[in-house]
């Protein structure tokens, strides 16, 4: 992995240049093509941007993220690059505008190197649903990198870029971050604009960051947060100040909430061991460890799947072959739309659209969707109660380390349960951060998760710094 903070100081003292760092990333992407992390690489654009960054450094006009090499998940619009969402459905589509996050990164001097592979329309937990082939875990290529932002996780973990953008609807940043050994931040819902992010489940989706260090995570967070008038759900508050907060001392004795043993008994032993070690580290740094019971754990995954599939069934309706993307030729409009969707969407996407259509259907709405909304309130209330008592809630990111390719494809429900520890943060809209913490016996990375109260993103990063070795 490479870190921007280190590279930037090397660039400043003339030891390297943006062009050199960008070229190194491009080389790495080439060498490691077997990982299938990228769907599009913009070598020319990145090289040109790096050259401009070098000029700015030379002129003393370097911006906050000058020369930062960024990979972008392929469900986020980058003008001039194809947008596929790893689906055949968007065949040939090129977006007309940069997503707000991309625009802000460019304005801060970042170099956009390309678009990363993912589960089709972000639906998956292993990156195996991509229409363009699975992404492989850099530690062990027979294993999955996690999903849905698998390509972004691999790109950072394998040194193909400094940081990567992903999207997290139910754990799609944190789970692959854990499987690949990077930091993975899902900010508070609304702190990062969704404008330009292809919607999967609008009330749960959040763009976030993969990075090799907390410092890089914070630096990117400060640039991409802040109100965006193009996103009505964007928080009206000011931009982030994570760099300041992680560098400042903790204001008061920390209180860290941990899960009771019963809640983690399904986890692999290596994960429980890492979890206990990390708790011990918090304790030695002076934090009080408080066991908390959130309650309602059994409804997390069902609630998530009802809400997410319902919204997805509506969000994906626009891919109808009429205006862009794949079109199956037919003389009748309705036949054309049906044939286009049949040809364009993969099995997991179809499964979720059908589920979502079902839970919103007249006669089933009250039993499923309305009930899930009520459950959502219960889960949020439970979190609010917990955060009245503790500064952060600490738990594993995943019950297992990276599993093998193909291992869970036969049973969608087992696959969905790999999101057990991650979905509740999306349901409640709270910030959550996966922190890399050791490895299992096979050398596979382990990730542990911190969750915080709404808008306490910076605080969460500050607390995570206690786990840095």
């Amino acid at each position: 992995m490479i870190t921007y903070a280190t590279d930037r100081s090397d660039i400043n003292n003339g030891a390297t240049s943006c062009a050199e760092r960008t070229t190194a990333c491009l080389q790495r992407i080439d060498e490691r093509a077997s990982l299938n992390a990228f769907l599009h690489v913009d070598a020319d654009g990145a090289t040109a941007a790096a050259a401009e960054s070098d000029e700015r450094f030379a002129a003393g006009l370097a911006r906050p993220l000058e020369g930062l090499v960024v990979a972008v998940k392929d469900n986020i619009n980058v003008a001039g690059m194809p947008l596929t969402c790893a689906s055949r459905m968007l065949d040939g589509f090129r977006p007309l505008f940069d997503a707000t996050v991309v625009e802000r990164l460019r304005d801060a001097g970042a170099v956009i190197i390309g678009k990363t592979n993912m589960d089709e329309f972000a639906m998956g937990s292993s990156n195996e649903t991509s229409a363009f082939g699975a992404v492989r875990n850099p530690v062990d290529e027979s294993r999955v990198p996690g999903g849905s932002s698998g390509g972004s996780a691999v790109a950072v973990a394998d040194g193909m870029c400094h940081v990567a953008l992903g999207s997290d609807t139910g754990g799609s940043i944190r789970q692959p971050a854990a499987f690949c050994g990077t930091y993975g931040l899902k900010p508070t819902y609304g702190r990062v604009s969704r404008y330009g992010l292809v919607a999967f489940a609008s009330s749960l989706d959040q763009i976030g960051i993969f990075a090799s260090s907390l410092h890089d995570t914070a630096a990117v967070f400060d640039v991409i947060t802040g109100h965006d008038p193009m996103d009505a759900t964007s928080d009206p508050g000011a931009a982030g100040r994570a760099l300041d907060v992680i560098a400042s001392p903790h204001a008061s004795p920390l209180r860290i909430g941990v899960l009771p043993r019963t809640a983690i008994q399904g986890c692999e032993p290596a994960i429980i061991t890492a979890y206990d070690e990390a708790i011990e580290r918090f304790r030695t740094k002076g934090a009080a460890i408080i066991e908390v019971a959130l309650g309602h754990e059994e409804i997390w995954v069902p609630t998530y799947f009802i809400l997410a599939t319902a919204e997805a069934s509506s969000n994906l309706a626009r891919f109808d072959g009429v205006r862009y993307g794949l079109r199956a030729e037919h003389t009748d409009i309705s036949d054309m739309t049906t044939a286009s969707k049949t040809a364009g969407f993969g099995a997991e996407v179809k499964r979720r659209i059908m589920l979502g259509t079902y839970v919103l259907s007249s006669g089933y709405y009250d039993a499923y969707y309305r009930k899930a909304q009520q459950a959502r309130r219960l889960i949020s209330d439970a979190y609010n109660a917990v955060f009245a008592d503790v500064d952060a809630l600490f738990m594993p990111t995943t019950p297992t380390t990276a599993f093998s390719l193909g291992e869970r494809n036969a049973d969608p429900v087992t696959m969905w349960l790999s999101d057990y520890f991650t979905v509740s943060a999306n349901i409640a809209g709270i910030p959550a951060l996966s922190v890399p913490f050791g490895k299992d016996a096979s050398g596979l990375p382990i990730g542990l998760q911190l969750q915080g109260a709404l808008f306490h993103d910076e605080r969460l990063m500050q607390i995570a710094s206690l786990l840095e070795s």
Partner: protein
Amino acid sequence: MTGYEAIIGLEIHAQLKTASKAFCACPTTFGASPNVNVCPICLGHPGTLPVLNRNLVAYAVTLGLATNCQIRRQSTFSRKNYFYADLPKGYQITQYEDPICYGGSVEIETDDGVKRIGITRIHMEEDSGKSIHDLDIDTLVDLNRAGVPLLEIVSEPDIRTAREAYLYLQQLRQTLLYLDICDGNMEEGSLRCDANVSVRKVGETRFGTKTEVKNLNSFRNVEKAIEYEIVRQIEVIESGGKVQQQTMQWDAAKQQTKVMRSKEQAHDYRYFPEPDLGPVVVDDLWKEQLRAALPELGLARKRRFMAAYGLPSYDAAILVDDVAVADYYEEACANLGTADAEAYKAVSNWIMTELLRIMGQQKCGIREAGCTPAQLASLVMAVKNDVISNKTAKDIFPAMLETGKTADVIIEEQGLRQVSDTAAIKLLVDKVLADNPDNLAKYKSGKTNLFGFFVGQVLKASGGSANPGIVSSMMKEALDASDPQ
């Protein structure tokens, strides 16, 4: 027919005159080339998000207040999901469970007096695009209209006749025009109307099975289609059948309704709250600001015209129907410089006979008809003050339009001032009598119908400028006084 009553409710869609669309910055101009007023947002491109146009909310609240509705402090948007080529996102953003306005009413004036029609709800939504099918092979889609803001106004089933439906629609249209939030053009589709119609035996308290009649693109068609549907339903029942719950379409060419889709084919729209938009909050301050800005509406203005200007109901109704005409009328009356019921009525007559005719011929507004309120007032006052006759007024009206001059100026320029000077007229009377001894003798011998001849001779001798009333009375006096020779 007798023994039945119809139960009718209308769903009206009003396209709003906001400068930009409901959820993006595209203009709403009608009549642009296809697919010009579009952007990634209203094209439903991946990654785009809606941002609510605040003017849409202001317009909705304004109409709600004007129709005595309750305004919901916090309302929400929902998605209505269905597939159609001209619906870019695959769903329409609309309001479902908690519309912004509810529980209002509109008064209509029927032949039987004033009737109140309840308004169930008014909600905000976006329009779809337009599909053009009338080509041999392809369907073409124009998305200029996609995302244009609409208000849907749903009435209570309080309407009992096709005529009442017509009057209600007209009243609502007038209100929209008075509020200046919709141009009310049914032919262009900026005002659309669907009707829910059912019939039942008089005395029955339950509703009959209703049908929804669509495609009513003119006032005439609304009345005709409802009338047709009422008769059709009664005939179905009378012949022992049952009315089916269906969506009907009015075929204006064949003058009949036909089945568009049955109950089984009804869509399941899978409504759910729109996650991309937060709640719409209308606080008391905003609501009261909008209330304070409400103009006087048509019916109130009509009643004021009758009370303040002494106009008959017929005149007042015609004048207030077009807010520009009503404004013009009031401006002309203010220019009279006198409060006089006769003059007020004269202004109304001029507008109704001359100006409305010109507006119809030239398809223009009253301000473009060529006569300013000040000009019209000068003309009315010239007649009232006996400066010119009514006939002269009619004669110089075209000159006013042409030159833009006031009546007074034209009267002076053309020397049309009516002579009311009795001494001057007396000279003319005496001269006419002296010049026509034979006719005078005939008159005296009983041929009194020659009176008109004498008056005419005087008017002629005056070059048409003598005041006919004064001439008439002085001639009568002179004839009575003269001796037969």
